[in-house]
């Protein structure tokens, strides 16, 4: 029915895409040049406050001391007046791995046991032990987020970051993400 009307087509003209191609190519090269193919992330921490108030006497306190590449210390403050979940499990873990008591606080010395391993392997082994302790403490103090990292002068930056990573998180689980950096005075 009156098909001839549909045949009233517009004149066929070629679309000139040259300018569009120019824009796209320029934009493309600009974006490729600007793009960074390395993924960056950040480890957050704060500087230590200069003084501690008397109100913080019965607060949870956890400090990891990086003495050198062969010695790490974990200091857990007094826990006798703190609310602890999984009390029995924590008590067992502390008895096995730490020295001290609930009133005075606990201390763990992590050293590399094997001498046959390379220095790098020994360091990784020590970080694993540190991670186990941090995880055990976190399971008993799930609401606590803060920990101190005390660092000796000879520790290299990569090791500081590795320790911070171990203290702050485990894949998707946050351990003690509020890390305060301190200088070791030893």
């Amino acid at each position, binding site marked *: 029915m009156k098909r001839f009307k549909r045949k009233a087509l517009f004149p066929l003209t070629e679309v000139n*895409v040259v300018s569009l*191609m120019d824009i*796209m*190519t320029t*934009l*493309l090269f600009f*974006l*490729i040049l*600007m*793009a*960074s193919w*390395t*993924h*960056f*992330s*950040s*480890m*957050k*921490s*704060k*500087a230590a406050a200069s003084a501690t108030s008397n109100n913080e006497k019965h607060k949870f306190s956890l400090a990891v001391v990086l003495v050198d590449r062969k010695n790490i210390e974990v200091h857990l403050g007094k826990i006798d007046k703190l609310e602890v979940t999984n009390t029995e499990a924590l008590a067992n873990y502390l008895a096995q791995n730490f020295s001290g008591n609930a009133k005075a606080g606990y201390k763990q010395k992590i050293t590399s046991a094997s001498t046959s391993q390379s220095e790098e392997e020994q360091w990784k082994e020590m970080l694993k032990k540190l991670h186990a302790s941090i995880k055990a403490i976190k399971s008993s103090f799930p609401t606590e987020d803060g920990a101190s990292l005390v*660092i*000796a*002068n*000879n*520790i*290299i*930056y*990569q090791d*500081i*970051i*590795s320790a*911070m*990573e171990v203290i*702050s*998180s485990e*894949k998707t689980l946050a351990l003690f993400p509020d890390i305060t*950096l301190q*200088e070791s005075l030893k």
Partner: protein
Amino acid sequence: MISLRRKSSVKLEPLPLNITSLMDVLTVLLFFLIRFFTVNPMTLSIPKDIALPKASVNQQIIEALVISLSKNELRIQGHLVVTLEGGSFKKSDLAPNGVIIPKVQTYLASEIDKRKNILEDNEHPTNPAIKELPPGKVIIQVDKDLTFDTIKRLLHTATKAGHGDFQFLVTTIQQ
């Protein structure tokens, strides 16, 4: 000469160039890159002499003042502030206490002043909270082989100048 003229008179027929597939590729690539930039809005330029430490964390970086510390120099926002010798600060660049780097402190303090000025101009000029602002954020790029003996001087100085909220930049390892 005659032979050359004959050759030049040969007419080539114009061939239609089909750029449809090329356009498709370019468009897809363009959208991919635009998407990439939307996810990573912050672009950071890492100095060539800094090898960042590696970590498997995935925390977003918040835009802040960038301090770069390599074995040879310390830069703030790309401006050279202090040069180092053998991965340590020169004694002449340190304050008598051996901890603070005065040039860095001055630079960072001026940044805090700028921040305060903006707040004073735009908000309540007599707001006492301006005097007690939270510590300023800084993105710290440090070479992975530097020791804490060097880094601590930068951290002390930054804290003293009011920038005590650190974001240590790391290269993410995909696990």
